[in-house]
């Protein structure tokens, strides 16, 4: 169990690194899909089965298809491959800070602990339609906001 968790976390880190540093948009999108897939497996291992299915199907599947379609339609991948200065140092520094924090926490025996009621027996229906109804409403409005953003940036003309 623990090995699976560490493997998933490592995979997320490596693919996350690749998606930020890749010069090709399609490679970046595929790396991002791999991050989501690893995250989905991690969620499944930790017992959040429904969330894992959503993560893999939506973030790893649907979103990647949309990304790749958009890149193919706009020829963005070719444009992005032009040589340019990349900030390689920042992700390395961030990863180094993360590694130091992990080592310090392991050495000092720091533990996040677990809460017994987290992810308790509440059914999916109960969570989706009752307890988190406010969030679902918020997500619906966020989708409308996203649709409005697409209209503004791709349909409306520039300032006259």
């Amino acid at each position: 169990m623990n090995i699976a968790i560490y493997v998933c976390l490592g995979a997320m880190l490596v693919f996350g690194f690749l998606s930020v540093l890749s010069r090709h948009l399609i490679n970046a999108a595929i790396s991002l899909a791999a991050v989501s897939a690893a995250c989905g497996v991690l969620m499944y291992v930790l017992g959040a089965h429904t969330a894992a299915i959503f993560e893999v199907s939506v973030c790893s599947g649907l979103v990647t298809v949309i990304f790749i379609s958009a890149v193919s339609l706009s020829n963005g991948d070719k444009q992005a491959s032009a040589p340019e200065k990349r900030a390689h140092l920042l992700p390395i520094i961030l990863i180094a800070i993360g590694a130091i924090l992990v080592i310090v926490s392991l050495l000092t025996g720091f533990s996040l602990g677990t809460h017994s009621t987290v992810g308790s027996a509440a059914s999916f229906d109960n969570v989706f339609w009752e307890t988190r109804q406010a969030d679902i409403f918020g997500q619906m409005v966020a989708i409308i906001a996203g649709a409005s953003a697409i209209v503004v940036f791709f349909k409306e003309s520039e300032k006259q």
Partner: protein
Amino acid sequence: MSALAVITQLFLALPLLALVVNNLVPRETMRHTTIGMSAGVATAQLLAAIIGFVLLSASGESSFRFALAWDAAKGLGYFRVDLVTLFLLACVGLVSLIANLTAFTTIDDHRSSFTNLLMVMLLGMNGMLIVRDLFSLYVFMEVTGIASFVMIGMYKSTRDLEGAFKYMVLSMLATIFILTGLSLLFIKAGSLSFDLLRPALFEGVVDAKTLLSWVALVLLVSGYAIKSGVVPFHSWLPDAYESADSAVSIMLSGIVTKIAGVYSMLVLVRLFPGNMALRGTLLVLGLLTIITGALLALQQQSFKRIAAYSSVSQMGYILLGFAADTRLGIIAGLLYLLTHALAKTALFTNAAALEKRLGTLNVNEMGGLQAKMPVTAFSSVAALLSIAGVPPLAGFWSKLLVLIALWSAGLRGVAAAALLLSILSGAYFLRLQKKAFFGKLNPRWNSVVEITGGIQVSELLLSIATIAIGLLFPLVLLYLQHAGLV
């Protein structure tokens, strides 16, 4: 169904309805109609919040729970309003109304999505004010954020997109901080509901689990500080305000940063009263913000940038009010939020008028404009005096309340420092007024005439409100005390 139950439904139903209607009409040819509808929604929200405030205070209850209409029958109550949130909902309605009045003049016919985005922004802020859970608060904060990015970059010029991009990147950082903070708090408390989070989370010796709560608090405060644009997280704010259309700047400066950032900090203050670390952080952030914002405002040449850095600076006084951590301090902070929203909205409305008539916002190119634009000059001076804390304008009373709250909470040094620092506000605004409206008229502006229409109505409305609230402030305070807010 009680009157309050009907009124509370309006905060979500009206913007949603306006969104649907706006997408059914041919918007390019009916821009004025759709903006008028949006102004109607804002007015209705202002009135609904005021009536709700009166009804709730008369009922003697501290809060009112409700749900979306189709869930209310099931007895669910995942939303809640109290006197504080109704007060803020009224502020949202007021600033949205002014933004719409300005939009009649500033938004061109090709910006048909303006009303859509404004309604989404309204839904986001209303949602933040009525939820009962820190995660739901975050969800609606993101909704407000998405609408803000798009509205800033709406005209797609390089400057607009740069402003939107900066805001988006820093908002992503805020998202990382907030989500990590929420995760840690969830691990510790097992819930993010306002009803279940208790100050006890931070009690006891500094062991690993208590440390977790402290780290969560630091991350949450940092995330909310980015959203409110306080120093040292302010770098996105002037660019975003300057590049956005004036109607959008009015929303951002007048209310969005206050609800997305400052209200979220108020939620933490109300959830964890007496938390010394939170109090200390707000004090430091508040003082740093007042000084840095004012010093940066002194160096700017653009009318909008001066107003933007002034927003940064004034945000510090609101934080100081909350940092007093007393009932009076919270009320002082809220009243400061209202009076600052009035004055800053007036200044951005003035910016819209100047941009429309002169085509520039560089104060060095202005001069003597009070002869040509007397209403704009009067409105600008009233706003300046209010922000600087000159009696008897509204800003004087709210600043006085913040200082009294700090003094009575034992923070006398901070109160004295805040009083001295208000001189800086006077300094940058005197410079602005002198360069823009007084002195010799620049011959370039001989043919300039006063702005008319929605912008002029807004300028007059805001000036009257600033003066009237100032003159009637003792009565306003008495009413709020009677209602139970004070």
